[in-house]
């Protein structure tokens, strides 16, 4: 294989989500203010910006107001202000308690926020960044961190293209590129592939709690205009999740007669028979949700993990030559169920820190430890820190509001934080043996409100070049059948929202089949495998879902 070519930039950013794009925009703004003329480049593994973005989303504009105070004039795609919040506790498959507005925790009040597609916001941010002179390269995944001889990060390499499933170059073989930078910012979102490497290499998570995760599954529906109430935000917890499985649903009435509906299931669940996908299909049957979907049509599906460890799981975000921002570090505010504004803000802070250094003559490769103080002095820190105090407050409200609120407190808004915060058991170590748990009998999809996995995956528009190496690496290929199957009934078959993992038996005994083309890049397998045997790596650039409006 031929040598990789290289290109040099002042700053390379990995990932065109809100955090990476905010870094880029802020860098470009400051660079022009201070006449530094920085060269800035963003690589994005999706085929276009937004293609891999899946969120709720109710968006708080605090960071955006700072980044582009004139975002309205610039036609940012935030057009549906929240008009009403509803919170439910689903008691069973028919009944629900509705929480009176006065009792809804403050962090779940969304006045002033907007319902929007985060993918579309990213498309818009990318256009702003390009206008400011940033180079954005969608279709290129960063697959390797490049280290200098002082052990500092000096950039990243993009993946090779045109390698066959057998690992041999095809006619179309095109080697990856080395993108060298004075500073590299990692903004890959939850469970970033390179972020994981960096956390290990620099021991960034030393002394903090293990990160905790959830998987979010989401669909977009065209609904009957008569049932559509733009601006309505509905949250709820309870049925069908039970026995200590945490999570909650969301339902947002956005523009164009569309409703975003989703379920978040915390990945610390212990029953290996649980299937987040089937729980999601089931929750849509509840009248609280079904009443809006009736007569509608499902138009998109997808899933994505989210990092919800919050303040106490936040790793060090700086290391020689680079910074980790947004959900790649884990800056989501669980109490608000929001990570966009904090992602944007940490990206902006990273930009400010870098400009400060370069402006003072720094040649790159330093450990920008000043980032800590910058973060501590910002409202992101204040918010994430307050999340710790949020729990007791909720608890008091919970006593006032009775059992319902108490339940919500624990299940929906993480009110149990004082107990779970210092939970040092990572999500992958939570599963109990399959034999000790009861299998869950999920109803068959009805084809109206609930659907089978494959027809759902079809709506994620996911696609991968077939003839390429499998991007789901098993450290020990024997584990799924030898250990996971007997002990946990191989839970990958159920936690993967795209049907990638299948145990099949063609007569020669069970074996694991990996349908890698179906993967929607949610990262759940990398997180939840009880043997921590699966490593998700980026496939050939451009592969993966093609989410519209998600």
């Amino acid at each position, binding site marked *: 294989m031929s040598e990789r070519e290289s*290109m040099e930039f002042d700053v390379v950013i990995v990932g065109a989500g809100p955090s990476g794009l905010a870094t880029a925009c802020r860098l470009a703004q400051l660079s022009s203010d201070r006449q530094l003329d920085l060269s800035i480049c963003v690589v994005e593994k999706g085929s276009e910006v*937004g293609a891999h973005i899946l969120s709720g989303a109710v968006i708080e504009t605090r960071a955006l107001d700072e980044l582009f105070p004139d975002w309205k004039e610039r036609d940012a795609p935030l057009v549906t202000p929240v008009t009403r919040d509803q919170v439910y506790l689903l008691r069973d498959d028919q009944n629900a308690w509705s929480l009176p507005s006065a009792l809804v925790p403050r962090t779940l009040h969304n006045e002033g926020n907007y319902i929007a597609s985060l993918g579309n916001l990213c498309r818009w941010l990318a256009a702003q960044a390009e206008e400011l002179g940033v180079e954005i390269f969608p279709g290129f995944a960063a697959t390797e961190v490049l280290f200098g001889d002082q052990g500092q990060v000096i950039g990243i390499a993009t993946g090779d*293209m045109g390698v066959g499933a057998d690992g041999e170059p095809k006619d*179309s073989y095109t080697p990856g*590129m080395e*993108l060298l930078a004075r500073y590299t910012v990692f903004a890959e979102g939850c469970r970033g592939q390179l972020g994981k490497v960096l956390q290990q290499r620099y021991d960034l998570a030393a002394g903090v709690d293990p990160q905790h995760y959830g998987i979010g599954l989401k669909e977009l529906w065209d609904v009957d205009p008569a049932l559509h109430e733009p601006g309505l935000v509905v949250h709820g917890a309870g049925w069908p999740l039970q026995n200590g499985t945490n999570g909650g649903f969301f339902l947002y009435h956005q523009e164009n007669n569309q409703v975003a509906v989703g379920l978040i299931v915390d990945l610390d669940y212990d029953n290996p028979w649980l299937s987040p996908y089937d729980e999601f299909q089931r929750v849509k049957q509840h009248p609280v949700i079904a009443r809006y979907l009736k007569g509608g049509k499902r138009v998109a599906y997808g899933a994505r993990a989210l990092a919800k460890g919050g303040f106490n799981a936040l790793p060090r975000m700086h290391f020689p030559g680079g910074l980790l921002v947004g959900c790649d570090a884990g800056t989501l505010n669980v109490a608000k169920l929001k990570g966009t504004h904090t992602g944007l803000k940490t990206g902006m802070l990273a930009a400010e820190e870098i400009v400060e250094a370069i402006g003072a003559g720094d040649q790159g490769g330093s450990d920008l430890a000043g980032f800590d103080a910058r973060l501590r002095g910002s409202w992101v820190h204040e918010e994430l820190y307050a999340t710790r105090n949020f729990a007791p407050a909720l608890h008091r409200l919970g006593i006032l509001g009775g059992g319902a609120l108490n339940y919500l407190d624990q299940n929906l808004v993480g009110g149990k934080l004082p107990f779970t915060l210092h939970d040092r058991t990572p999500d992958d170590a939570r599963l109990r043996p399959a034999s000790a748990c009861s299998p869950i009998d999920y109803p068959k999809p009805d084809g109206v409100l609930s659907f089978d996995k494959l027809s759902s995956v079809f*709506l994620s528009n996911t696609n991968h070049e077939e003839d390429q190496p499998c991007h789901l690496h098993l450290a020990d290929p024997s584990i799924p059948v030898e250990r996971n199957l007997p002990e946990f009934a191989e839970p990958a078959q159920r936690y993967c929202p795209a049907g990638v993992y299948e145990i099949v038996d063609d007569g020669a005994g069970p074996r694991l089949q990996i349908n890698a083309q179906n993967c929607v890049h949610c990262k759940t397998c990398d997180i939840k495998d009880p043997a921590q045997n699966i490593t998700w790596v980026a496939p050939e650039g451009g592969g993966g879902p*093609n989410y*519209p409006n998600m």
Partner: protein
Amino acid sequence: MKVLVAVKRVIDYNVKVRVKPDHSNVDLANVKMSINPFCEIAVEEAVRLKESGAASEVVVVSIGPKSVQDQIRAAMAMGADRGIWIETAETDLGALSIARLLAQVVRDEQPGLVLLGKQSIDSDNNQTGQMLAAMLDYPQATFASKLTVTGDEAEVTREIDGGLQTLALKLPAVVTTDLRLNEPRYIKLPDIMKAKRKPLAQTSPETLGVTPSAGLKLLSVEPPAERQGGVMVESVAALVDALKNQARVL
């Protein structure tokens, strides 16, 4: 020799096409758009002609709103030298208007070879190349799966129903590409940056002296009927019966 390649911006082939709830058209809001795959093959072929020395310049042209610049830039990142953007409100003006606009570009540019995709994967018309050749009175070869250019002659192998047909054409000529002509290259990062600096000229139907005609009107778009689930039959007799009386295909 100069090669002119026409490219169209279409919905990406990975995207599941969705009809708007009011059936007025296909929903294109925020879905991924790409160069029509057949046009991409045409660009690749033109660039290969240039790399082999048979062509000296590759010019790409696209018609539509500002967003089609993305596809022109992508073609330039593959290796085309410059672009022409004909600004119109829509990409789908109908094959006849597109051919008229392209014919005017050909008259201005005087390329030795015009390459187009055999059809676009959105409207599947398979008409533009043929109309263009007729308007220009150029020889044409459609569905090309092999192309060689020697001097002022092109030899084209065409995929036809019964097999392959090989034609010799006097240049200038119009050739439309089929799937097997080549496999387009991966675009390289530095080439994307270079493409941003390549010249892209803007023009309009008025400047070209062409009035797009509204020959066709889109009345309504229907998604294909949902596939019914299969049934298992007990015996051959039951199968024959089902084919006769239920499916009514016998």
